[in-house]
């Protein structure tokens, strides 16, 4: 148990993941991938489009298993889906036939909590994301930003110790995205979860994270890691105009650019 306490939230140690393509060829999505996420740490992962960023998250959830190497969560190897993990998807993953509150209640009900308790807790979370008035709406009646808030409430209600986010805000417009960043940082600072936030938007990564991992063009491996030493609490809307933010942005982009160009050249070839 003593090991459990001090162990990092997530460790990926020399992990590789290969797929069989429909034609029977083996494709490597990630190779020799090593990453450590400490408890309570906010890590952003950036890399060129389609390099295998999402694969790393699936390995942590247990939805996919590594072809080689080891994935450890809270010090123990990953076996199946860990209840301490929450996941926010890029696409809309709400259940369209359930009302907003029923969507938020889904997690506790799946985990066999009593209905009244689930309902009270769901109300509480909807109030926290500012959707108390929309309990009885169906997802299609909400805007994209509101649906994302429901998705956040749906994930946070389970009290995840690890939060995995796969380009969660990429479909939102710029203004809504900044609001969602604020919302996420607020929820994160209350929940004290460890976060892995996958994105292709470098500024988003710098504004939110403690550490930024830059990946190579596929097969993905870690190219460099940057520690972002910007003070918290951060105001995402303003932080991008600070000199230190701009410096980070310039340095990391110089690094990321090569990979983006490699990836682009390959796609064009």
């Amino acid at each position: 148990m003593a090991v459990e306490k001090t162990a990092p939230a997530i460790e990926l140690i020399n992990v590789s993941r290969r797929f069989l393509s429909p034609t029977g060829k083996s494709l490597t999505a990630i190779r020799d991938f090593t990453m450590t996420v400490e408890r309570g740490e906010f890590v952003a992962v950036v890399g060129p489009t389609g390099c295998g960023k999402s694969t790393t998250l699936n390995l942590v959830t247990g939805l996919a298993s590594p072809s080689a190497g080891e994935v450890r969560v809270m010090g123990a190897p990953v076996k199946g889906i860990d209840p301490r993990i929450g996941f926010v998807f890029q696409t809309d993953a709400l259940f369209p036939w359930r009302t907003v509150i029923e969507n938020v209640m889904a997690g506790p009900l799946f985990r066999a909590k009593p209905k009244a308790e689930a309902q009270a807790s769901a109300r509480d979370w909807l109030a926290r994301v500012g959707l108390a008035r929309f309990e009885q709406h169906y997802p299609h009646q909400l805007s994209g930003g509101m649906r994302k808030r429901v998705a956040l409430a749906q994930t946070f209600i389970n009290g995840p110790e690890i939060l995995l986010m796969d380009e969660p805000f990429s479909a939102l417009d710029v203004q809504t995205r900044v609001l969602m960043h604020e919302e996420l940082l607020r929820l994160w600072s209350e929940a004290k979860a460890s976060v892995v936030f996958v994105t292709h938007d470098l500024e988003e990564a710098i504004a939110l994270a403690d550490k930024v991992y830059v990946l190579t063009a596929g097969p993905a491996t870690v190219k460099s890691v940057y520690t972002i030493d910007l003070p918290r609490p951060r105001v995402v809307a303003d932080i991008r105009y600070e000199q230190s933010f701009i410096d980070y942005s310039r340095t990391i982009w110089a690094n990321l650019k090569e990979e983006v160009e490699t990836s682009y050249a390959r796609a064009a070839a």
Partner: protein
Amino acid sequence: MTDATVNISAASFRPGTSDAEIEAAAAKAAVNRRRTVIFWRLAILIAFLGLWEIAGRMAWIDPFFYAMPSAIAGRLYEWMTEGTSEGPLWYHLYVTMEESVLGFVTGSVAGIIIGVALGRNRMAADIFSIYIKVINSIPRVVLAPIFIMILGLGLASKVALAFVMVFFVVFHNAFQGVREADRAMIANARILGASDWQLTRSVIVPSAMSWIFASLHVSFGFAIIGAIVGEFVGSRYGIGLLINIAKGSFDAAGMYAAIVIVMVVALGAEYLMTLVENRLAKWRPQPLHETQ
């Protein structure tokens, strides 16, 4: 916007027209549009029946083969008030409906259960798919004589035929619906903590529901076909038997009258199905114009 959206040209309003006036005009245009649709529907029906009647009376077509609307209506009235040569009409209708409904219910329940089960289990699907293809390639009606030989002239053989008519349609759609269920939604449910059974019950089946309903719409019609074909081949009661007897006695009006009865029943069933579906699918976005 769908094509049914009411268009009002901006030119018809002077500057400064209030919203209320625009809304009133839009509501009026919607009512007019609906009236036009109903008018043309009725007009076409009346023209069709009228032409048929006239063509029969003027002997452009031979009423012996083609009957006439008035003769068909007369036969229907006679059947309803005095009964058919084989006993009361209502009893025949009841028998056919009983066969269809039983075949429809058992066929769709079995289709949904097996479709969902195979949709969830890739290995089983791969193994059984070849047999399902083989059986599905049999034209269902050729099974009628076999069922009648095995199960007799009564209810069971017709229910069996209606069952096989319905089963494959529903099975196919349920299977497809399960396969089309959104990957992200399934992953989401599993990470939220859903067990396999919870996943099937609260994610897979609801998301396959629109596929399943699409098949239920057509399959009640198929159930009726199954029942009637079974009755043609051998039975003591039923609408199919009435058609068969009318054919034997060259009673064209009787045959058409039986067809009218089946049409009315099938349309009624379709209407009921739509009501049920609308209740179950209240989460789906409604087109704007329907909320007016």
